[in-house]
């Protein structure tokens, strides 16, 4: 016999009260002198022995009631109650049900989704819960959502709550699950506790768990009887796992190329996969992938022609009716088409080398693009006369030095969200630039210039770019170049630099890993730094296809707007303001049509409105106020959930072999698990009933032996009528 609240057993000390009362009142029959004895009926007599016996019985009843009440409050239960006859005690338990609601649970095998099967499993579990027993329900996803915490079980309400739940387009974060369930179990006031984790046991989550996570689950089993209830299903699934802009300047009347990646997560090859590219829900391109092998990915290029300025919703969709998981058949991004892009090219020398840059930027513009794409070249000595705010990007090539005021102006310019591209050259005064760019701690350039080094070999041939490039939008088109074409670019001389903290290398030289292109963020803008020149004095890059591709990608990247980057479900969506906005709230329209108002908060002179948790996949619409035009934000489902393969039953059993955790593969297993975990009995309710009975008995007995009479005091002479 154990007690759930053993400290309350101290209440049994209260038994001293009736004993004390009995001792104090022992033999205390109230006595009085009496004159009118002749009128008393002497047939009703009470003998003192009779009185003592009844008092003693009363005391015993009271003591027993107090002892039983203390025991009942302490909630007695027996963990192993096989010997207890049926009818004595109750088989009560607190139950915690954790339901996996990650979007792999939406996978259907043609008859029902895994989530629907999970609801059926939960119905089997709840059949064994007594009304009034404590129940908790947790929805598992990217974070654990406790829908009911220690509520008294009421079948109708619980079913309603369960049926209101849906699969969320989030991935399952299994790491936090044991901790959440343990906390719930510990806060639950029940003689025996049971945890049921209903999940599809996705192989990516459960196979090869970290050691600490396995230990955490075993630790969880110490707090409560834990049963994993797998909901199995097929593993076929086709998903678009990526959609990104590969090349193209996002401005009016240009064509941009997007790359969609389709992955076959199933065990069978898939043929004739049609991928549709949509711009603002209008199909702009369609491609067919002849075949995708099991576990393989294929990419297709989708072209979009932008005829008008403004935001455009770009999406790639699988044209299929039979895919078992619809959530990952669509991938989305946003293109914000500029009506005009202006570039200022600041040239350190006037020998015409700046024309490489202008030519590279206009390489794909064509005649029609000239009107909305301008490149203005100025000598560096004319820099003070230029208003930087008129330009989206500033390119500085071989500029010897800038004044401190200019350095400050550039920093403010970049901080406001513009772009700066810096090229090295013979005229660059390294010491001056190092000094200028080190204003206020954060350097303007992403590296400290050390010295000029030659990278050419004995024959005077320079070193090529390293083909191993990061997945950066700037070098994305270079990755699709043939290696021989990429290796035509040779760099003979570069600046040796020391990258600043927070900077990243985008391009580097093969072999030496010396940085060629570095990037870092300053405020809301970006700075690119080439350690080589923009003309052909230090390299031949300016006359190779690499130069216009990189420059155009950089301009596209630098002129990109915040929301062009797509987000994942569960991410926060933020709307930044340059100045203090008029409205105190920003508005986010969700893909399902709801409107969420978010307060604008000030943080270090910046104004930001943030939606903490995007719960749906699709296009959100961010607006600075209710009446303002919206800016679309693409939110995609996490592709990790697309791999819907579950652990095989044998693997699932093996996974928890030797632990206290049970795996209920079938309904029969689940019934056994429930029966096994309900071996104990709780006696508090029956104890309370006995206490109530004893109190009733005591009341009946005590009413035959009431206590002292009230004694009236009077003074016949002083009171007045």
């Amino acid at each position, binding site marked *: 016999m154990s007690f759930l609240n053993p400290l309350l057993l101290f209440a049994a000390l209260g038994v001293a009260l009736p004993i004390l009362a009995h001792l104090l009142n022992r033999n205390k029959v109230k006595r009085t002198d009496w*004159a009118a004895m002749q009128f008393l009926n002497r047939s009703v007599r009470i003998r003192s022995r009779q009185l003592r016996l009844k008092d003693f019985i009363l005391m015993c009843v009271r003591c027993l009631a107090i002892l039983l009440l203390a025991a009942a409050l302490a909630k007695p239960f027996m963990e192993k109650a096989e010997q207890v006859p049926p009818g004595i005690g109750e088989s009560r338990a607190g139950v915690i049900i954790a339901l996996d609601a990650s979007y792999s649970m939406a996978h259907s095998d043609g008859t029902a989704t895994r989530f629907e099967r999970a609801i059926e499993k939960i119905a089997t579990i709840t059949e064994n819960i007594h009304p009034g027993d404590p129940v908790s329900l947790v929805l598992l996803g990217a974070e654990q959502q406790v829908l009911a915490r220690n509520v008294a079980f009421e079948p109708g309400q619980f079913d309603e709550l369960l049926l209101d739940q849906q699969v969320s387009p989030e991935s399952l974060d299994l790491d936090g699950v044991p901790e959440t369930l343990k906390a719930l179990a510990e806060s639950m006031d029940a003689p025996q506790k049971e945890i049921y984790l209903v999940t599809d046991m996705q192989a990516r989550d459960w196979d090869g768990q970290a050691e600490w996570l396995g230990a955490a689950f075993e630790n969880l089993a110490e707090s409560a009887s834990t049963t994993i209830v797998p909901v199995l299903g097929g593993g076929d699934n086709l998903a678009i796992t990526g959609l990104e802009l590969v090349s193209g300047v996002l401005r009016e009347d240009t064509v941009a190329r997007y790359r969609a990646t389709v992955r076959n997560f199933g065990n069978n090859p898939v043929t004739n996969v049609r991928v549709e590219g949509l711009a603002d829900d209008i199909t702009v391109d369609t491609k067919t992938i002849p075949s995708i092998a099991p576990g393989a990915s294929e990419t297709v290029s989708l072209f979009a022609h932008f005829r008008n300025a403004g935001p455009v919703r770009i999406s790639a969709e699988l044209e299929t009716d039979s895919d078992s998981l619809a959530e990952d058949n669509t991938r989305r991004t946003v293109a914000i088409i500029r009506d005009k892009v202006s570039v200022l090219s600041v040239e350190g020398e006037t020998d015409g080398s700046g024309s490489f840059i202008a030519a590279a930027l206009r390489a794909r513009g064509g005649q029609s693009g000239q009107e909305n794409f301008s490149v203005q070249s100025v000598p560096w000595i004319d820099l003070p006369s230029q208003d930087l705010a008129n330009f989206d990007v500033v390119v500085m090539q071989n500029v010897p030095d800038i004044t401190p005021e200019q350095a400050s102006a550039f920093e403010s310019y970049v901080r406001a969200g513009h772009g700066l591209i810096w090229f090295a050259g013979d005229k660059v005064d390294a010491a001056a630039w190092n000094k200028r760019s080190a204003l206020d701690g954060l350097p303007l350039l992403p590296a400290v210039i050390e010295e000029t080094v030659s990278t050419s070999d004995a024959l005077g041939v320079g070193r090529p770019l390293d083909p191993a490039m990061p997945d950066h939008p700037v070098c994305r088109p270079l990755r699709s170049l043939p290696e021989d074409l990429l290796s035509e670019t040779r760099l003979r001389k570069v600046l040796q630099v020391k990258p600043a903290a927070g900077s990243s290398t985008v391009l580097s030289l093969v072999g030496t890993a010396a940085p060629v292109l570095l990037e870092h963020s300053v405020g809301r803008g970006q700075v690119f730094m080439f350690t080589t020149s923009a003309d052909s004095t230090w390299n031949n890059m300016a006359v190779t296809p690499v130069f216009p591709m990189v420059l155009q990608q950089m301009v596209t990247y630098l002129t990109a707007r915040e929301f062009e980057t797509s987000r994942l479900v569960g991410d926060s969506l933020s709307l930044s303001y340059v100045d203090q906005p008029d409205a105190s709230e920003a508005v986010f329209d969700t893909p399902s049509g709801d409107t969420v108002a978010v307060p604008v908060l000030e943080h270090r002179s910046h104004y930001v409105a943030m939606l903490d948790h995007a719960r749906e996949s699709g296009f959100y619409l961010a607006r600075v106020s209710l009446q303002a035009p919206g800016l679309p934000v693409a939110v995609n489902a996490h592709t990790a959930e697309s791999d819907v393969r579950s652990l095989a039953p044998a693997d699932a059993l093996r996974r928890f072999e030797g632990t206290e955790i049970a795996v209920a593969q079938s309904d029969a297993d689940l019934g056994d698990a429930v029966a096994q975990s309900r071996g104990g009995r709780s006696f508090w309710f029956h104890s309370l009933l006995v206490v109530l009975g004893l109190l009733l008995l005591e009341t009946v007995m005590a009413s035959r032996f009431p206590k002292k009479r009230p004694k009236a005091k009077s003074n016949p002479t002083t009171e007045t009528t």
Partner: protein
Amino acid sequence: MSEHLPDTNYLDPKVLQSLGDLELVAREVVEGLRVGSHRSPLRGFSTEFAHHRQYSPGDEIRDIDWRVFGRTDRYYTKLYEAETNFDCTILVDASASMNYGSGKVSKLEYAKFLAASLAYVVLKQRDSVGLSVFDSEVREYLPPRSAMGVILEIDRLLRDVKPTPKTSIAKQLHDIALMMKRRSFVILISDLFSDVDDIRAGLDHLRHDGHNVVVLHTLDPYEINFPFKGTWQFDGMEGEEPLTTQPERIRDDYLASFGEYMEALKAGCVASHVDYTTVDTSRPLDGLLSEFFHLRQSTLNGPSAARP
């Protein structure tokens, strides 16, 4: 009035003040009309001069003291002891049963206050008052006197009362009747816990001797209502065997038995032409006395009056 009182135990100035000018109207013994309240039927029998009083229209011409007129040129009438006073004898039962009190005042204490107050009222209207205290026998007898100093003796007698069990009330009333030489106004203060026939025999003896009898039946509220709850042991105050019982179970029987006794007692009093009044010791004394006097004023044709 109270500042002239001697230092007594049983006269409460507040009570006396509230009684005001109430008079104890005695019928039969004092009949006829004088200026005051009484006219003695024994006129001319006693000639003991008491004091003078200024003449008022209606006074007998023969009672004018012409000597005083000769000296003072004013009319004064002479008043005589036997003409102006009636005798009142207060009988106080000091038996052990009177010592019961559910509150802080026992019936005996209440009776003492009652007796003293009545004595004072009688003396105040210049009548004579006497006292007899009895239990198993007549302990004290103070013949009626009209001097104010008698109040001190009454007070002393009352103070010295020591209750003892009584045997028969009839015997004590017989003895007292023998002691009283003149027809008198007799006030009996007692709980009368005795045999009704025995009580009635005693009262009849008094009535037979020509006394005007008033019974003040003094009872404690617990004796009237019997409100006990729980388990009680009742110890008899006059030697009865103790009884341990649950009063709630015998309450109905008690009240029925007590009611029968009261009915029999009242019927006996009516039959014997004795005025009967129940005195509840939980009531304030002044209120009780006022009510008693007013009741007597309004019931001059009461049971005693019917006697030939």
